């Protein structure tokens, strides 16, 4: 039952492509997920953890032969290289990581947002992005608090007070 997360491996961010290609060559044929965690509130040395989740799937039997979770600690500087040439699934997932966290990939300078629109300001899943923040194209321009007494009083965490 412990196998679904798999072994956790830390990999230096500047050699992510080589290390992941090695794993691909070792039979990890599925990129299950690619995501990111913002460590801002925890005071970690690097702000973001980019997480690659790989699986070795036997196409004949459908058995999962093992999983590995590869973690790269990065800051805002584009250090990571894209792995979309190794697993095409990485294309959209990297766009999502850029969209939500503002983590860039060195060889994808013109990367496009995935879920939000181009005029969106900031990166929504960063810990310093306030949940009540207004966007220029949407809603009242003033950035006032939401007009709901219960929303503002009962949950101070939401409004950032």
């Amino acid at each position, binding site marked *: 039952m412990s196998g679904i997360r798999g072994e956790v491996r830390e990999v230096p961010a500047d050699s992510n492509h080589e290390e992941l290609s090695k794993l691909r060559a070792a039979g990890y044929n*599925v990129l299950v997920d690619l995501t990111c965690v913002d460590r801002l509130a925890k005071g970690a040395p690097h702000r973001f953890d980019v*997480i690659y989740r790989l699986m070795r799937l036997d196409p004949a039997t459908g*058995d999962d032969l093992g999983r590995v979770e590869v973690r790269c600690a990065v800051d805002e500087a584009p250090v990571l290289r894209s792995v979309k040439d190794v697993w095409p*699934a990485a294309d959209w997932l990297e766009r999502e990581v850029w969209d939500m966290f503002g983590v860039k990939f060195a060889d994808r300078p013109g990367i496009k947002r*995935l879920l939000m629109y181009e005029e969106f300001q900031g990166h929504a*899943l960063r810990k310093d992005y306030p949940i009540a923040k207004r966007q220029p194209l949407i809603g009242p321009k003033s950035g006032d608090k939401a007009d709901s007494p219960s929303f503002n009083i009962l949950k101070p965490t939401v409004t950032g007070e």
Partner: protein
Amino acid sequence: MAAKSQKTYMLNMGPQHPSMHGVVRLVLELEGERIVDVDAEIGYLHRAFEKHAENETWNNVVPWTDRLNYVSPLINNVGYAMAVERLAGIEVPERGQYIRVIASEISRVTDHLTCIGATAMELGSLTVFLYLIKGREFLYQLVDHLTGARITTAFTRVGGVKGDLPPDFAEKFRAVAKEVRLAVAESDKLLTRNRIFMDRMEGTGKLSPADALAYGITGPFLRSTGVPYDVRRAHPYAVYGKLDFEIPVGSTGDNYDRYLCRLAEIEQSLRLIEQCLERIPDGQHSLEPKEIKYAFEIQDAGKHGDTALLAKYAAKVDQTLEGMGKDAQPGTRTADRKITLPAKESTYTNIEGLMNHFELVMWSWGVRIPPSETYFAVEGGNGELGFHLVSDGGDGPYRVRCRPPCLFPMAAMKKLLIGGQIADVIPTFGSINMIAGELDR
């Protein structure tokens, strides 16, 4: 180059297109009716699920998960609750696990019925759509009977489920299963050997197993290419390891195979529920209490200002109180007060329940899980539905990542559509079963 650009033209499909069930925009580059290039633009239904979850307590995220794949909300509920339990290191009693499997499989059937029905409708077969949606309606009524809601179920709690199976559930299920099997059989007769349907479905939207794996595709889509990967088999969770079911696989990986796989999986899911109802043991459906104290002891502690104690013990109430709620209680009693919300009957009828409830739902109170990280996945209607959770020791998640299974086939749109006809967009898009709520979160 210039000559080519004169030959091709762009066509926008969506974001609101009558034959695409879901808000998504496809930008097609066409040469006559042949697709030269395609670009999918998503995000129209983004509701910031992950951001919201970071601002909620562990239990309060459950209702948000309904809104992921809104055609099979119970699977999302179960997947999220099990991920949190994995993080907290707790395990639900066996009866609760059986109930979760039953709930998940009902949802899987509604998911597949919707997918096949909608695809058939878009290809002109409205009759099949009506038959299958009728079948789904019976299942929704069953879900309503079980959870109190048709779609926004919020059925699981961290540490258990909302309530026990209603006493007449098995009987009701048998009647519903008969209707669903009838609807499926009727649709099977109308569609499976139908010339028009086969012409549209066979050989379109084809994907090789190697490509499907490279794009990270799972679920019925991957199985249609012949790879029998199913999370329920590869990493059995809840009680799937004890149950007998088959994994239907296709051979060519085209739209027709995906249709056949889903149709066969409906029968397997119904079989699973039947087995569960036969084998389900008696007992608690949610966590047992660690320690029970008399209510007056808890009240005394509360009077002395020791309110932190209140959440830790289950209260043994005196006979008067026990008598009051007795009829309503057996169905929904949950026990471990540190983690599981008390039964609604308890919340409304006695002070212990009310205090317990508030202690768990007030911000900065709730369940506390030690700092840790985990990944857990269940088999959703469209494939591996994973949750990556990070706890920083607070009363809510620090980060919730949902791995949306239908994002992966959507990302493979280019591979699926380029070279085909514009008419192939409809069956291919239908068989991807894109659910915008899950895709855009």
